[in-house]
């Protein structure tokens, strides 16, 4: 059988059935994880998959980017003093496209491996289950970050081309990019957890979008029922969009895009804690999902 590598853990796997020994260096688990991350990120945009799977992600990327281009052109033509659509409100304004992207791509990331029963092959390699989840989570979050960050960056480029001063634009741009990173991690986590529950693509798509849609509908309705009380401002905790928006406005002092944002320092702390708990919870749920036998 193969010799243990330098790290002491046997890295040889099921394929070594004893015909001829391979004694050279092995790339190890972290290399597999990195490859899986890249593959997940590419796969979320349909790269390396059939032409049909490229249509939807690139269509939605176009839907995200187009308003940014229009805003940039309008700003420079009309010589406006500021962007008509701010950096930090961009994601919330286009949340339908983000939701559909998450819904259509997170099952593509998670469910395909389950449906074609290839997870068993992954786990027969040195890749641990945590590392599998890390690679998938990071890949999905990176794909979402591209989807959200690209139009925001184009918005900045449009503003600079319209000769708006950089020092006025930059703080809001950076806030929005931090927000995009948060959105990516939070939404990616929720999407993957829901998608990992089912090997069926169709059910996964509907379930992911359903969860996000019901949560935002619920949040809007709760705000509508409760009116203007201070407690209403905590209703933002219900939906992931208002949750991240609350953190961006509460902690990073941006203009809240929906409602009034969290009340005071306490609210900001509560919202941030909720984000951390949510992401950690999603990661834990995914690890737990893949710990047991898969179906």
């Amino acid at each position, binding site marked *: 059988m193969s010799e243990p590598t330098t790290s002491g853990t046997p890295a040889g796997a099921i394929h070594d059935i004893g015909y001829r020994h391979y004694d050279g260096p092995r790339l190890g688990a972290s290399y597999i994880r990195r490859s899986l991350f890249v593959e997940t990120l590419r796969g979320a945009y349909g790269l390396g998959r059939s032409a*049909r799977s490229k249509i939807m992600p690139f269509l939605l990327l176009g839907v995200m980017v187009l308003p940014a281009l229009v805003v940039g052109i309008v700003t420079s033509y009309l010589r406006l003093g500021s962007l008509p659509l701010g950096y930090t409100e961009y994601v919330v304004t286009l949340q339908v496209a983000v*939701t*559909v992207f998450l819904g*259509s791509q997170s099952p593509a990331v998670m469910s395909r491996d389950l449906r074609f029963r290839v997870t068993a092959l992954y786990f027969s390699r040195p890749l641990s289950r945590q590392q599998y989840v890390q690679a998938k989570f990071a890949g999905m979050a990176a794909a979402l970050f591209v989807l959200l960050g690209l139009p925001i960056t184009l918005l900045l480029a449009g503003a600079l081309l319209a000769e708006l001063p950089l020092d006025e634009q930059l703080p809001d741009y950076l806030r929005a990019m931090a927000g995009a990173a948060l959105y990516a991690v939070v939404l990616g986590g929720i999407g993957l957890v829901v998608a990992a529950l089912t090997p069926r693509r169709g*059910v996964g798509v509907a379930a992911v979008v*359903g969860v996000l849609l*019901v949560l935002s509908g619920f949040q809007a*309705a709760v705000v509508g*029922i409760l009116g203007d009380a201070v407690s209403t401002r905590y209703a933002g905790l219900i939906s992931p969009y208002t949750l991240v928006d609350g953190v961006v406005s509460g902690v990073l002092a941006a203009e809240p895009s929906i409602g009034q944002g969290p009340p005071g320092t306490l609210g900001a702390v509560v919202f941030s804690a909720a984000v951390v708990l949510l992401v950690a919870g999603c990661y834990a749920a995914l690890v737990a999902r893949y710990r047991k036998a898969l179906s």
Partner: protein
Amino acid sequence: MNATVASLTRRNLLGRKRTLVLLLLPLALLALCTLARISANLDPDIEQDLQGALAPDLLGAFAIAILMPLLSLIAGTGSIGPEIDEGSIIYLLAKPLNRYSIVVTKLLVAIGVVVAFGVVPVGVAGVVLTGEVGAVTMGYTVGALAGGVAYSAVFLLLAVLSRNAVVIGLIYALIWESLVGGLVPGAQALSVQQWSLAVVQRVLGDSAQRLDVESAVGFGAALVLLTVVTLAATGYAGRRLETLRLNDDA
């Protein structure tokens, strides 16, 4: 109509885990309405709102615009989509069964699921909100049923036509009906949601104006459109199932 196909479809739609997902939607609606009811008991202002436009607003925004399309999407595509996806539909198509009757059976099962998980909870929500089986409750229940039937037929057709049925259906239900319909008034005439609102408006009668319920199309037109769309979608789905190609891509 075929009992065996019906029971197979029902088992496909209502697995243990899938029933849970389906239950989440009506539970969210009922939780929302209970919350509204409780806060109405605490605050007379909200109580007054609830007698006025708040109840129709809640039911319209959550039940008609979110719950029904999503449920019909899951039920309509789920009744045939996975079978086509996995290729196991071939065992069904190889039997000496009329393809139209397969489609009709699957549609009826999907409608049954929509009624159980959507229409009935909407009725219950109406009772919780208004405290009576009045015009509002009846209107939204009937409207939800009309919308659910048309949505199910359309989404079942989509599932026969395309592997991406769920995403296309979502784009229709979300982007076309809410975004495009909100911006381009003409697009509202081509929206199942507006048609079911027309039914609601009709049942509410004179109180519709007071409750601020207004549909983009008239009742007659809506009824005709609902019927035509449902029948045409079912017929075309049956036609496509007769000439279905399996494994045309991987």
